[in-house]
């Protein structure tokens, strides 16, 4: 069975359900493939330059967020134009800790001093503890997302409305961060991090370690989400996407299913934001607003909204393209990005993962392949 959505009639992702949602033998080959891929990626520190490794690490971190969007948008049918908010919350949580960790007793972060604060805001205080910060990376976005989505979904506000409200959330959050400069660092955001739990972030070892950590989390999230999508929960989530009322009249309450998906998406976004902040060395409102939030959706749209691997691939592809094209041809980049939005969504709703699946399934592709192979002989 194919992993992609096929136009408007999504094919199910589960194997033969009577033999259980975890169709056993089929799992081993993908696992082997995944392991091989992760193993190759784990060698990257010795294959690419330090800068390229950093770039790869950033984009992989973003891939974590993208996989969350597969669950929320592809599987749950809930379009969030506010993932930047959760990305930012994760980033700020870890950044606040690193700012505090660099201070001596009784000192304040520099931006607080020149904003006229003389004491640490109360909500900064817990982040002195690395444990609180690491939990905060996941819990703050998770709890906010759960409360927010529950408040909206329980009143059966969804679809386009939900997308618009999340966009307003992104705008409001970015504005709030900028305007509360004394306690958030404002437009400048937070930057200049020295150490994390005693590790010098400038060292090569730290760069490699963080890269591997990112890779491990991406691999873990990939497997976890696969399990989840293949569970009964995943099946119900897709069923709710395709017929929310039918599911409701079969005795299920759709709200918690959607809330759970949205919350998992937010937790992954928070983790992604924290990792990104560690790799980039900065977190700022520029990462959380309306425009970055909608760009996150396009990574997934390009890769394939129903394919976890596609989402990672799409994230890497779009960001690498941006890195390469926008400096040399800034105007062209904006046209290209706009066109990608239009064309992918209109013609390739399954993204490139869908395209690859489609192509692999058509007989002319096989014929083409044989022709090419034949010629090369």
């Amino acid at each position, binding site marked *: 069975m194919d992993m992609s959505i096929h136009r408007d009639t999504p094919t199910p992702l589960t194997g033969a359900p009577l033999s259980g949602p975890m169709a056993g033998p089929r799992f081993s080959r993908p696992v082997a493939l995944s392991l091989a891929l992760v193993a190759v990626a784990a060698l990257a520190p010795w294959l690419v330059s330090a800068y390229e490794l950093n770039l790869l690490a950033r984009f992989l971190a973003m891939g974590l967020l993208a996989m969350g969007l597969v669950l929320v948008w592809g599987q749950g*049918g809930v379009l969030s134009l506010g993932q930047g908010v959760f990305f930012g919350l994760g980033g700020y949580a870890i950044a606040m800790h690193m700012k505090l960790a660099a201070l001596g007793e009784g000192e304040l972060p520099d931006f607080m001093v020149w904003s006229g604060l003389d004491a640490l805001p109360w909500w900064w205080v817990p982040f002195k503890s690395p444990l609180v910060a690491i939990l905060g990376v996941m819990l703050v976005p998770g709890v906010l997302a759960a409360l927010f989505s529950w408040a909206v979904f329980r009143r059966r506000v969804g679809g386009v409305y939900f997308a618009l409200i999340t966009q307003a959330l992104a705008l409001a959050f970015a504005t709030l961060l900028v305007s509360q400069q004394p306690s958030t660092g404002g437009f400048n955001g937070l930057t200049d991090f020295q150490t994390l739990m005693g590790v010098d972030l400038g060292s090569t070892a730290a760069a490699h370690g963080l890269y591997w950590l990112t890779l491990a989390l991406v691999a873990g999230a990939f497997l976890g989400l696969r399990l989840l999508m293949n569970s009964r929960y995943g099946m119900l989530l897709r069923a709710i996407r395709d017929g929310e009322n039918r599911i409701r009249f079969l005795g299920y309450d759709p709200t918690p299913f959607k809330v759970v998906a949205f919350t998992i998406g937010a937790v992954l976004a928070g983790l992604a934001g924290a990792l990104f902040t560690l790799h980039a060395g900065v977190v700022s409102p520029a990462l959380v607003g309306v425009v970055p939030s909608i760009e996150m959706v396009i990574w997934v749209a390009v890769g394939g909204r129903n394919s976890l691997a596609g989402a990672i691939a799409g994230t890497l592809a779009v960001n690498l393209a941006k890195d390469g094209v926008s400096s040399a041809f800034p105007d062209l980049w904006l046209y290209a990005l706009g066109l990608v*939005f239009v064309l992918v969504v209109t013609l390739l709703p399954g993204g490139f993962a869908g395209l690859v699946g489609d192509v692999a399934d058509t007989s002319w592709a096989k014929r083409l392949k044989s022709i090419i192979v034949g010629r090369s002989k």
Partner: protein
Amino acid sequence: MGEWPLIAGQIFNGFSVASLYVLAALGLALSFGLMRVINMAHGEMLMLGGYLAYLTLQVVPGPLGILAAMPVAFLGAAAVGAVLEATLIKRLSARPLDTLLATWGVSLILQQAARNLFGAIGVDVRAPQWLNHAYTVPSGFLEGLTIPATRLFILAVAFAVMGALSLLLARTRIGLLVRAVNQDRGMAAATGINVRAVDLSVFCLGTGIAGLAGVVLALLGPVTPNVGQSYVVPAFLVVVLGGLGSLKGTAIASLIVGLFSALVQILVDVSLTQVLLLLFVIGFIQFRPQGVVAVRSRALDA
């Protein structure tokens, strides 16, 4: 000068801001009500109106240029809307969320096109002299309250557009067709109404109104490639608050947003007002998830 002129002034400003939101959101709400799609490039229709006003003023300078610009902007934006509907929206009509994303792409393209055509720094559109003055209350408890003529003019335009639109929907054959499709798309199609043509006309009408709105927005704000973005998110919130595409709902929702923003701004700054507005909207849908004006009928989606 005491508190009263400030509060009265803010109530007026609330109406004034509401009139801007009505104009910005009306076209959006119209096509959303009929086709259930949101056009993310709606802000760029406002932008287009601004640039068309600029071009018109090059041809027709003088005090009445701004009046000439309004029909030009209406038609220009409606024409662009027609192209957009016929090439893109039509194909995506069954996928509202995808329409959102695809039209966002269109909005990026239109912004960049404006940058390449007119430059990134914007162009100069000015209110004519006959609008550039203000009425001040000379005495009494509202002493010092100032009412700018430009804002009165925009209020008048908003009322005129709403009036014309409700007449159009209530009294004309096109309005009848729109109401028929609105009520039951399948049934309307079965009775021989060209539903596609109705969609197209309503979408054009919506973008045309946005173009018109762009002209009056240029009286109070900049005309730049990304000007649409600064109005479009509040316009979306108006649509969420207003409910499914009713004129009345859009007007009341705009008024709620306008008055809320203006009155809250007496106490807190604009940044915080935006946050409070969002919280208000989320709070509001706890009580009225279907929006200000509920459409209660048997035709609930299965």
